C-alpha cells in the first residue's frame, strides 16, 4: 500500500470515528473495558502537550489501565436528564473596574519584548 493511500484510509477512519462519536459516542474498538495501549498513552500526552519519554510509557500505561478499569464503575450509573448544570448564565453589565498594571502583569515574565510576553514561534 503506498503512503498516500494509507493516509487517505487513516483520514477516512478518523472521520468515521468522529462521526460515530458525534452520533452515538461509540467507544472505539479495543477499549470496551480497561485497555489502552502505549501508543494511546503517547497520543494522550501529545493532546495534553506534555512530553513523555519512551521509558515512561509502560508504567504510565499500566497505571492508566488500572484507574480506567476502576472508572468503569460509572457504567452502572443511570443517566439523568440535564444532570449537567441546569443553571443558566447570568450576565452583568460590562463595567470597567481597576485591574493590574502592565508592569505588574509582566513582573513574572523572564522573556519579554516591548511590553509583550515572548512566546515560542507558532509555525
Amino acid at each position, binding site marked *: 500500500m503506498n503512503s498516500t493511500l494509507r493516509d487517505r484510509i487513516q483520514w477516512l477512519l478518523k472521520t468515521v*470515528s*468522529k462521526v*460515530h*462519536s458525534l452520533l452515538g*459516542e*461509540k*467507544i*472505539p474498538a479495543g477499549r470496551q473495558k480497561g485497555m*489502552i495501549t502505549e501508543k*494511546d*498513552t503517547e497520543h*494522550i*500526552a*501529545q*493532546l*495534553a*502537550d*506534555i*512530553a*513523555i*519519554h519512551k521509558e515512561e510509557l509502560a508504567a*504510565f500505561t499500566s*497505571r*492508566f489501565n*488500572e*484507574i*480506567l478499569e*476502576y*472508572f468503569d*464503575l*460509572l*457504567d*452502572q*450509573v*443511570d*443517566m*439523568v436528564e440535564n*444532570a*449537567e448544570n441546569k443553571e443558566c448564565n447570568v450576565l452583568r453589565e460590562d463595567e470597567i473596574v481597576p485591574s*493590574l498594571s502592565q508592569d*505588574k*502583569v509582566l*513582573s*513574572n*515574565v*523572564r*522573556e519579554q519584548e516591548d511590553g509583550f*510576553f*515572548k*512566546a*515560542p*514561534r*507558532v*509555525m
Partner: protein
Amino acid sequence: MIPVPSIEFHPDDRYFAFLRTVSTPECGQGRLAGIPVAVKDNISTAGIETTCASRILAGYIPPYDATVVEHLRREGAAIVGKTNMDEFGMGTTTENSAFGPTKNPADTSRVPGGSSGGSAAAIAGGLVPMALGTDTGGSIRCPAAFCGIVGLKPTYGRVSRYGLIAYANSLEQIGPMAGNVTDVNRLMEVIAGYDSRDSTSLNQAYLHTPDPEIRGVKIGVPEEFFGEGVDPRVASVVWDAISMLERKGAEIVTCRMPSMAYALAAYYVTCTCEASSNLARFDGVRYGDPADTRKTWHESFQERRREGFGEEVRRRIMLGTFALSSGYYGKYYAKAQAARHHVRADFARLFRDVDVLAGPTMPTVAFRFGEKSDPLSMYLSDILTVPANLAGVPAISVPCGKVGNLPVGLQITGRWREDERVVDVAYAYEQGRSA
C-alpha cells in the same frame, strides 16, 4: 494610636510544614490582630512566592492577594509563611510536593495527610494556631484527621476562590484549619462572604458563635461510611464519638447512601477533566522558567511541562485529557456528572430526615511514607471525603480519639449553606469530650 500587637512565631520547622516563611511578618488591628496564620501555597499572596509546591511555578511572585488573604491582612493577622502541599493539591499525603514531604507531628514516620499537609502539620506541631487550607476532595479534612486538628470544608461558594490557583474549580473551596473548633470558627468569620470577583460566590456572610447544645439534633449515620476498607479500629473510635453525642441528647439514625458506590470514580473523572483544562495555562510564557522560544510552540511547551510537573500531576492532566477526548466524553464525563447528580439527590433525601451526617473522615489512620505508592490505592482513601465536594455541602473533621498514638477524625457533613450547624455539632463533640 493603638500599638501594633507583637507576633509570636518561632519557625522551628522540624516537620517541613513550611515551604517558606516570612522573615518579618506584618500585622495590624482587627479580629485576628497579631495572630500568626499560615497560608497554603496554592493561595496567592502578593509579594510572597507562591508555587503550589510545583517546580513549574518556582520563583512565581503573585502581583496580587487572594481575597481571603486580603481579609486576613485587613483583620490584622500576620501571614507568617506558605505551607507545603501535594503539587497543585493532587494527593492525599503531601508526598507529591516537588520540594519533599511534610512529616506528621503525631508520628514523624508517617504522612500528615494531604493535600493541605503543611498547614495541618504547622498547627499540630505548635508553629501556628491557625492556617488556611484548600479542599477539592478532602484536602483539608484528611490532614486535619491525620494530624489531630480541626478542619472545615465550607459550602461551595461561601469562601471566595479569587486568587486560589485553580485545580478543579467546581469542587474546591478554601477553608479554615485550627487546633480547636473555636479558632476554626473565628477564621471562618474572617474569610467567608460574598466576593464579586468569584462568579460562584454566595451572598451569605458567616457570623457565628458556636453553640454546644446537641439535644434534639438528628444525626444520620450512613452504613456506607463504615463500609469496606474502613479500619475496624478507626470505626470503633468513631462509633464511640457518635455514642457520646447520643448520650448528650442527639438522636442517631442509621441510613443508606447508595451513590457512595460510584462517588469516588465520579470525583476522579471530574477533577482530572477540570485539571486538564486548568493546568493548560502553565506553559512557561507568563511565569516560571521560560519556554525555549527558539523551538516551536508545541515542542517547547511539551518539554517545559514534562520538566515542570511531577508524575502525579502529569498523570491527572493526561487522564482528564483522555476522558474528555472524542469518543469517551459520554462514557466518562457525562456519566460522572450524572453520578454527581445522584450524590446530590442522596444528600437531599437524607437531609429531609436528619440535620447532619456523621462518620469517619478517613478510612484509616495516617499512612507510613511510601505506603500508598500506587495511585489507585491512594485515590481509594478519599472515598469518605469526596461526596461533600461533589455535592458542594459543608463538612468538618474534628479529632475524636486515637488508634495507638495516631489521631482519628470524626466527620460531620451538613446541608448546603449550613456550615454553622456542622461547626455547632463539632463544637458540641469537642466540649463534651473535654468535659
